[in-house]
């Protein structure tokens, strides 16, 4: 594989557990998948199945403790950079990647945006932190020793306001204050304009609470995409929005991604949205991957009983009222789980071996893998089958 065909990120046998009063919660339990350069990968599954914990491990944002990194690796290959193993890397390398090479947008922009900072200040911070040398270039300031750059980048994590008001009062920098402000303004305006916010210059000076939900979401996207990251993680970015606004935001992410060749990890429990925006899909259930494949193939030939169940449960015009195909039962406890297939307690096809042996992922078609004995050759025993259970 050449560098450009190598996946942008590879997660291998990742295990993230949480200590709780009831015992150890196996939130993510042996998850492996790749995110390819420029693709949109959907991560779907029920509440609590481990989607967010998996995604947060790409930025090492899971709180530890109570979290435990119980095993596995997360390798990231930024464009033109050496691979980095994110679970083991030091804090300063991680900081250089966060918000720069990997960015994240959240379900609730209220939490991601700082209520005390204007839109301009929120986005400026990203530039100060990751693009200090380009800013200095913009204003024609030479910084041979890299001192100013280091200073600015370090202060950026504190506050852009402080940089402009405080740091830039220092004599050799003072002369450039206005120029720097202009350079930052230009970049912030461009970032906002990318998200089709009307009149970015006016929006720049507002505080988050003065914006509607859809606009806050755009500001968060502008901030996340400000540095042209190689990977954007979108954790249920539109769940809190109305369908009409939702459609616009998804279009926007798709469009920006195509233009900048950004890979997107798109997390959602809404299968119809995933079908619309993703190239490939990973389906999780109770901390494990149960199926993964190209979107079209997966929706045309869902192979895991859980995936089939999810698709069948969506109300559609053809369903008789009261006859939706619900998956009976509930997600099993993730505290000290049984060794077998985690779906066995709700699966209509389960056989005794399903309860004792973990099926593991195996291919069923090109690029399409399933963790279910219905599709695996079963060594020395009689496995489950769709036909058999149907009778």
């Amino acid at each position, binding site marked *: 594989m050449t560098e450009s065909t190598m996946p942008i990120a590879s997660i291998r046998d990742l295990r993230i557990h949480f200590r709780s009063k009831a015992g150890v919660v196996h939130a993510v339990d042996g998850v492996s998948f790749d995110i390819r350069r420029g693709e949109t990968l959907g991560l779907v599954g029920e509440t609590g199945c481990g989607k967010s914990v998996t995604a947060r491990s790409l930025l090492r944002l899971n709180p530890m403790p109570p979290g435990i990194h119980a095993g596995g690796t997360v390798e990231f290959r930024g464009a033109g950079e050496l691979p980095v193993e994110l679970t083991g890397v030091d804090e300063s390398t991680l900081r250089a990647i966060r918000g720069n090479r990997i960015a994240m947008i959240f379900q609730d922009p209220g939490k991601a945006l700082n209520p005390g900072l204007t839109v301009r200040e929120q986005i400026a911070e990203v530039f100060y932190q990751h693009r200090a040398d380009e800013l200095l270039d913009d204003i024609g300031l030479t910084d041979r020793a890299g001192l100013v750059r280091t200073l600015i980048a370090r202060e950026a994590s504190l506050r852009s306001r402080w940089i402009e008001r405080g740091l830039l009062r220092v004599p050799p920098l003072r002369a450039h204050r206005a120029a720097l402000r202009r350079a930052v303004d230009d970049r912030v305006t461009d970032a906002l304009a990318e998200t089709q916010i009307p009149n970015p210059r006016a929006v720049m000076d507002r505080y988050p609470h003065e914006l*509607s939900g859809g606009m806050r979401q755009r500001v968060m996207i502008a901030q996340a995409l400000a540095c042209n990251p190689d990977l954007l993680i979108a954790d249920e970015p539109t769940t809190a929005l109305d369908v009409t606004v*939702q*459609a*616009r935001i998804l279009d926007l992410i798709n469009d920006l991604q195509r233009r900048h060749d950004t890979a997107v990890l798109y997390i959602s429990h809404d299968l119809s949205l995933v079908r619309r925006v993703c190239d490939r899909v990973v389906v999780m259930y109770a901390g494990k991957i149960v199926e993964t494949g190209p979107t079209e193939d997966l929706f045309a030939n869902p192979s895991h009983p859980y995936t089939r169940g999810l698709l069948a449960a969506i*109300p*559609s015009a053809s369903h008789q009222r009261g006859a*939706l195909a619900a998956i009976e039962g509930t997600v099993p406890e993730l505290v000290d789980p049984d060794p077998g297939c985690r779906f066995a307690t709700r699966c209509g096809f389960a056989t005794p071996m399903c309860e004792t042996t973990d099926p593991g992922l195996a291919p069923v078609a090109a690029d399409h893998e399933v963790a279910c004995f219905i599709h695996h050759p079963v060594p020395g025993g009689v496995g489950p089958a769709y036909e058999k259970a149907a009778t």
Partner: protein
Amino acid sequence: MTSVGSHPTETGRRDVVLAAREVAKHFPIKEGVLQRVAGHVKAVDGVSFEIRRGQTLGLVGESGCGKTTLGRVVAGLSEPTAGAVLFDIDSETLAAYDGGSSVGDIETAHKVDALTGDAYRRFRRNCQMVFQDSFASLNPRHLTIDIVGRPLRVHKEASGSGLTERVVELLEQVGLGRQHLYRYPHQFSGGQRQRISIARALALDPELIVLDEPTSALDVSVQAQILNLLHELQQANDLTYLFITHDLGVVRHMADHIVVMYLGTVAESGPTSAIFENQHHPYTKALLGASPDVDAAEEFTGLEGSVPDPAHPPQGCRFHTRCPVATARCGWEVDDVVRWIEDEPGAAGRLAGVKRDSAFAAELAFDDAATAAVVVDAIRSGRIHASMPEAVLKAESRDSRVDVEFGAVPDVELSVRGPGHVAACVHESLLDL
């Protein structure tokens, strides 16, 4: 007027379980230390519909359009600012009421906030509500038996072991059981908590249940369980539902009749099939177009702009600020010009003041004459909206000032589009647009 004097405790058998007539609910906006009333949020602003016995009425619309507010008024949990909610009334009496005859008598017998004594109690027990957020609506310190048993105790229906048995029965109806009696809400999953809310709503054997987004917080597989359960219960107990949701797939599946709300008013209402197959309001069309359907992976568009402030709803048709097919008759007003100025790079920030004579006429003051000229040109040339030149009566600049006036347009009323199907749009059909 045969039914007015019927015995108040008799189980209602009249064909309309509940009718809303021009219902409004306005919330005061209070300002300053003195908390003076500075205006009103018109959360619901003149809504009418009726729900027939055994049927499900779906109520859809964007966040903030007034669905929950209307649901609470209907369930008797809050009083309408204006209009009437009529309970358990037959179609003929309702027709008489709409025709203006015996209004006083009919209201005494059926209008929810006029009911007293037994009649009021009968309404209270027969109309229940299930809330969107089961976590917030179930007291975290109460056990299941107390939560589900409370209505029974309050209405003195049961006590002691009789109460326990009735609660078990209710839990079994919603797919739970005796083993769940002594657990707290946090010990249940989201789907199970919603079942408990439903069991509580069923306790007094009501006729009508208002379901406010009962499955929005749930995953599809659990949502399917709850929707199936609601259908079974409806069949078994002859229940009538007002089903509030923003999920069009869900409403299509569950509802017989749909009301589409926009900014506190009804944009369109009709039988489910008519709403899905033959929309007569551009907003309904946009909602359906934006809703992703797993079966159809076609393009989706969404709507421009954001929902206007319900304290200052637009004139004419409330949807005209976002409507893709708006015309000169839809209510162009001063605010439309001001909003354009604020978003226009060349003009933003140069508007110094607005002196209004009405929503339709004002004098705009700018920092310079050039901007004033640009704005006049934008109004007249159709740059703000193609249909604006036809609607404007006056757009003239005097130095840095602009006088602008539009023809006053009344609210766009609902008109009949088919059997039981009404829409509030100036277009007779959207088919050739």
